[in-house]
């Protein structure tokens, strides 16, 4: 990253970290939503942005994590934050299972399959599979997280939990990006035949991208469940997957800063346009169209690194 980039990143981080002191509860809650979407988009970015695998069913993995956390917490009284690793594992393993048979599919074909997976999960949740998902009503009474003896309740408190996770995710994913693993995903995106032809096990890395991206989304599911205390299938609709897909493409697939910026725009702008009431999605849609026409590579396109 160049100096200007570092300065912008540092300034944004500083601004964000004091934001709750100046904003009201509603505004902080919007920032929390943005944070959750940013986490999900960063996890999808591994699959879609870095590895170039068209996944439009990311909400399914998010749902798997959220429901795992909710079920463990409400039925077995497992402290909610303790469910994090298990939510991640369940979502990750599920992703590996569904991706294994279809991993050789390319582009749009893979996208259709992932849309199908997303819908199957959502409908299964509505139909109360195994009698543990609570059907269309979902699961309620999920407990608040406890951290060092402090129970997190207020939006301001959640703000630091969620954005702390965003910071940690950025830190880890930046390291991943600058490694053998991260590069292998980029080789896949650029030219699969050439990647395989240079000794890279393309099937393995495709699955690894899916598994890791899904596991991360699963852990975000835990955060979502404890923030809302109630979860239902409607939170994990196809629209969620589309929004996440849009954030990654809009931000510049493979660019972490771009994905963060796009999270603010895609989740934040509709809130700013609330006065327009019914017209706000129209405005939002127009912005998207103009954007894609004039800057189809994304706000901050991925670039070769030194």
């Amino acid at each position: 990253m160049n100096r200007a980039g570092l300065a912008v990143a540092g300034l944004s981080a500083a601004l964000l970290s004091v934001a709750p002191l100046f904003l009201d509860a509603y505004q902080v809650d919007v920032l929390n939503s943005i944070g959750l979407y940013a986490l999900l988009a960063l996890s999808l970015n591994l699959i879609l942005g870095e590895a170039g695998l068209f996944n439009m069913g990311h909400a399914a993995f998010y749902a798997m994590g959220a429901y795992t956390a909710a079920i463990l917490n409400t039925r077995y009284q497992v402290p909610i934050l303790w469910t994090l690793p298990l939510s991640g594992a369940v979502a990750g393993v599920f992703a590996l299972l569904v991706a294994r048979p279809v991993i050789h599919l390319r582009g749009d074909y893979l996208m259709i399959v992932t849309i199908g997976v997303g819908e199957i999960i959502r409908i299964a949740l509505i139909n109360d599979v195994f009698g543990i998902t609570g059907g269309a009503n979902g699961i309620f009474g999920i407990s608040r997280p406890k951290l060092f003896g402090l129970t997190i309740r207020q939006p301001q408190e959640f703000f630091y939990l969620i954005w702390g996770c965003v910071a940690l995710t950025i830190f880890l994913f930046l390291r991943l990006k600058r490694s053998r693993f991260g590069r292998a995903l980029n080789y896949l995106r650029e030219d699969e035949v050439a990647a395989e032809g240079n000794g890279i096990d393309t099937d393995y890395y495709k699955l690894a991208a899916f598994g890791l991206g899904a596991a991360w989304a699963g852990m975000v599911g835990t955060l979502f469940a404890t923030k809302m205390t109630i979860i239902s299938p409607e939170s994990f609709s196809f629209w969620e997957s589309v929004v996440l897909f849009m954030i990654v493409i809009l931000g510049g697939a493979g660019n972490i800063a771009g994905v963060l910026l796009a999270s603010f725009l895609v989740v934040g702008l509709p809130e700013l346009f609330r006065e327009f009431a019914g017209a706000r999605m129209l405005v939002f849609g127009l912005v998207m169209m103009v954007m894609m026409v004039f800057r189809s590579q994304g706000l901050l396109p991925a670039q070769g690194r030194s």
Partner: protein
Amino acid sequence: MALLSLQNLTKNFGGLVAVNGVSFAVEAGSVVGLIGPNGAGKTTVFNLITGNYRPDRGEIAFAGTRLNGLRTHRIIMLGIARTFQNIRLFQQLTALENVLAGCHYRMRGGIIAAMLRLPSQQRSEQEAVERAVRELEFVGLGEQSLTVAKNLPYGDQRRLEIARALATQPRLLVLDEPAGGMNEQETEALIGLIMQIRARGITILLIEHDMRLVMRACEQLVVLEYGSKIAEGPPEQVRFDPKVIEAYLGTEDDV
């Protein structure tokens, strides 16, 4: 024993016999040219060797290992590297990142090692970058390491592909039309590069239409026509073979 041997290799695409019972061997340390008119099946033979296609019949063996049915990355790991006829670089990535792809399978460290920046992972990265830089310098692209691949001139892109292949530390390098689209000076430089690669002890098998390159760089030629081998031998012998002249260099009659 030959480093690479093809026995009675056959590949059909639907009704078309692309490669028909081809057998030849590549001795360790040699430079062998695979030539023939367009559509003779040369690239198909390459794709069979590197596992991009599976042979319908026949055997491929490399240094005593049977390659039939192995996945491409496994074959690369055994010590065969290749370039592509229609340059397949990672266009959006830098020259260095492209060459690092070749280093990939000899490196250590997965997701966890990368996230924790383990010392072993850091060392592996360091070594890979050093190797990649050496290979870039070897092909004369030392100054271009941070240039994005798609911004390189055509001839440099061909050489970058060779550097990436060399980074896998192969015993056999398979080049598919390395001089394709190159001008005279670039081809001249390429012949020099091929000699230098051979001097490193790497065996070379290449497809080429540029006869000056083939005649000067290759010790042994295999000629294909309509998927079948029609001649084999040293260049000075093959060039006077009536069958080859008729099939491929037949322009002498046309004049």
